[in-house]
């Protein structure tokens, strides 16, 4: 097969600041990518995978070694446009790569730059928009589209150049599960039908399942290269690099350690369930579920009561719509509550009511038994008692030092002197910010650390209720795990109430005591994770996901195994399989 991308002993170093040592983002990468293949690049933040991608179309030029695109050296300036036309790039933030304010104009941008005649541009724009399934939005304004739709427009903008290869640099990181699925199925189709080479850089291990080839980067080096099944079977090696494996592989790995004879290569839910069922034939007596440690509903007193909350935007205009409709639920003191729902299900509107940022159109919010809007002038004090950490909170940092930024909230509460100092240091400690970092500028820190600082800024107000909106969005697996561990510790040690808003079922399943599921502005269901996931079919029907482990459990139950289909952690499923297994014959 012909080669589209080739690197030879590629090194790259970002220009070092004075007095600093040069650090190499890429060191001796040798790689060839065949035309028409689907390649996924994995690696933790700072492993060099984005840098690698940017050398593929001469956005970055190698410090040493060579990069060839279809045989063309990227250092040859005369070939720049020819190279960029062949290798298209899609980036992480959909908003920052759309140039025009009409969809078709944006898709036309690249061919316009290439001097393609108008009629030909028209044809390419229409073809590209059809290829990504966005033809119905030809004359729409991009800022009104969803994240997944914007990314598909961005992909169309690249396809309009008629490239041989598309590189997606964490293009799915900022999307919700539906958006991610839209983008993935689009690029898989382009790869299959048009034979376009795809290089997908991602943090989401599941996206690698269907790839032809997986590359793993670590510290600027290419450390693994092979088909996904082979790569994911190297569980320990991946973990040591701060990566995770899909839950299916995690489960198989655990069971193997328990002495089961299972292959590590059963990557998809179906394969995994098939492998387990084949190894453990249907066992004797079916048992009722209950092997999972059930987190019980707390009986402590209610701290937040949401009563028939309704919020309507744009009253009296043609755009009038209810973002939240008649929502009622109670949050108990010390509870870890999860709220799950799609983008547009009303999650964001709902949580902005809980600390009085939005005023209900109908219904009321009780905090400690009192209506928060009883005295509208004192609404600020509610915000100190109910701390809200927004999505991507690092974008709100503004002070010269980390210390001052964390102090902003408590200072607004009127704290001064030693008391203020204590609040700041305590909050910094909770999220693992070291003392010497407090005097640094927040903008010098890495992405994950910035997020911790922003979280500390809310914790420093010592709120009775802490609301977190997608706290781990866009972080790499190790970053996600560390942050959630911090939050779990905080919950365990402080016994404070936490509300976690997420669209990741796995994240919710692993952390919360109780789940509220929102769907199109109202509460679809609520209960303990076991209760909610027991209705897995309904969740899937509603277009929501269930954790991958639960899907394995459901598939096993369908195969007639006596497994509670509402299991939602790998450990619990492992335990139930071990118990079920005792009754059967050894394999």
């Amino acid at each position, binding site marked *: 097969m012909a080669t589209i991308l080739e690197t030879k002993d590629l090194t790259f170093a970002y220009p070092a600041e004075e007095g600093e040592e040069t650090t190499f983002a890429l060191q001796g990468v040798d790689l060839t990518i065949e035309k028409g293949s689907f390649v996924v690049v994995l690696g933790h933040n700072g492993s060099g995978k984005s840098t690698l991608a940017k050398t593929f179309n001469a956005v970055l030029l190698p410090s040493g070694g060579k990069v060839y695109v279809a045989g063309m050296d990227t250092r040859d300036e005369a070939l720049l446009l020819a190279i960029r036309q062949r290798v298209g790039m899609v980036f992480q933030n959909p908003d920052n790569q759309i140039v025009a*304010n009409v969809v078709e104009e944006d898709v036309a941008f690249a061919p316009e730059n290439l*001097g393609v*005649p108008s009629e030909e541009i028209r044809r390419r724009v229409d073809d590209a928009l059809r290829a990504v399934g966005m033809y119905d939005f030809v004359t729409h304004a991009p800022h009104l589209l969803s994240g997944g739709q914007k990314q598909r427009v961005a992909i169309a903008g690249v396809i309009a150049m008629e490239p041989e290869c598309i590189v997606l640099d964490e293009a799915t990181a900022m999307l919700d599960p539906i958006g991610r699925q839209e983008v993935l199925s689009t690029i898989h189709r382009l790869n299959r039908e048009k034979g376009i080479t795809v290089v997908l850089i991602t943090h989401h291990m599941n996206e690698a399942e269907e790839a032809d080839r997986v590359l793993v980067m670590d510290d600027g080096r290419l450390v693994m290269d092979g088909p996904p099944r082979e790569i994911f079977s190297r569980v320990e090696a991946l973990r040591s690099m701060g990566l995770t494996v899909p839950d299916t592989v995690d489960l198989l790995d655990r069971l193997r350690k328990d002495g089961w004879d299972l292959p590590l290569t059963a990557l998809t839910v179906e394969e995994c369930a098939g492998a387990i069922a084949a190894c453990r034939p249907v066992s004797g007596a079916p048992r009722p579920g209950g092997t999972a440690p059930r987190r019980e509903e707390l009986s402590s007193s209610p701290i937040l009561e949401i009563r028939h909350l309704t919020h309507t935007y744009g009253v009296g205009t043609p755009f009038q719509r209810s973002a939240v409709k008649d929502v009622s639920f109670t949050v108990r003191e010390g509870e870890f509550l999860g709220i799950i729902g799609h983008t547009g299900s009303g999650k964001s509107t709902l949580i902005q009511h809980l600390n009085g940022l939005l005023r209900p159109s109908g219904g009321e919010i009780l905090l400690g038994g009192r209506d928060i809007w009883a005295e509208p002038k004192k609404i600020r004090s509610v915000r*100190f008692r109910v701390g809200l950490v927004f999505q991507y909170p690092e974008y709100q940092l*503004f002070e010269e030092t980390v210390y001052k930024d964390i102090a902003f909230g408590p200072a*607004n509460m009127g704290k001064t002197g030693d008391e203020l100092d204590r609040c700041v240091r305590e909050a910094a400690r909770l999220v693992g910010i070291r003392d010497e970092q407090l005097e640094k500028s927040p903008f010098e820190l890495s992405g994950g650390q910035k997020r911790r600082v922003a979280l500390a800024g*809310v914790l420093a107000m010592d709120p009775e209720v802490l609301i977190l909106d997608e706290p781990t969005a866009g972080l790499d697996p190790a970053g996600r795990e560390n942050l959630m561990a911090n939050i779990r510790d905080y919950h365990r040690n402080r016994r404070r109430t936490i509300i976690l808003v997420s669209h990741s079922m796995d994240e919710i399943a692993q952390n919360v005591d109780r789940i509220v599921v929102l769907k199109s502005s109202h509460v679809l269901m609520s209960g303990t994770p076991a209760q909610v996931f027991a209705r897995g079919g309904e969740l899937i029907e509603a277009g929501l996901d269930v954790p991958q482990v639960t899907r394995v459990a459901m598939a096993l139950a369908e195969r007639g195994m006596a497994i509670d289909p509402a299991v939602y952690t790998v450990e619990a499923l492992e335990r139930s399989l071990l118990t079920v297994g005792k009754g059967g014959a050894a394999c």
Partner: protein
Amino acid sequence: MLKDITLGQYFPGDTVAHKLDPRTKILLVVLYIIALFCAKSFLTYGIMALCLAVCVRISRVRVKAMVRGLRPVLFIILFTAVLNLFFTPGERTLVQLGILRVSNTGLRTAFFMVLRIMLLIMGTFLMTYTTSPISLTDGLERLLGWLKRFRVPVHELAMMMSIALRFIPTLIEETDKIMSAQKARGADLESGNLIQKAKAMVPILVPLFISAFRRADELATAMECRCYHGGEGRTKLHVLRYERRDGIALTAGCLVCVGVIVLGRFGL
């Protein structure tokens, strides 16, 4: 709350006024302004007002929207009226209030000035109401293309303008988010005197600027990746082409303009 601001005052439609080439509309507005400044009498002002009324009718823009466009300049209109009314010297005094006196010329000038400003604003607004910002920048770029010979970066300016238009809604949304986030940390944006209020804006402006720079940086890379290399050799998806209706509209515009000037010459 910021979302309520309607920017880019464009009302999509399918009338002749919407379909005209943006260059034609820009030229018509220029002719209209010239004629307006040459109008001196009830007759010529009447013609101008009639022309505007006809155009509004053709474009099917609601009269309410036209009047609403005047609201932001209400103060200027009133100010001009008062100034002209009281401080224009004239032969006959109509009313005397202390040192303030209204002359017959004053009354006439004030009336015409107010009319002129109102017609001027409504005329230009009619153009923005019927032309999308993107085709307006496109039209400007093409009209001013000859300036490139004098090293005026016309293409770059037009590109900047259309990117600015593209990012206005994004940045408004972002401002909204940052404001909410800082309010959640107890920022007080409403109370206090002017200086305190200005200080309270720092936690909003700093993140907003940082984010705007980050966006600009990422957008520049994304544009380069899509082979952007300046205006040279660029083609267009929609090529502007003068149609028959543009010829008719421009001829009519020229006739009115010349007519008003000639009438002015005769002191009418």
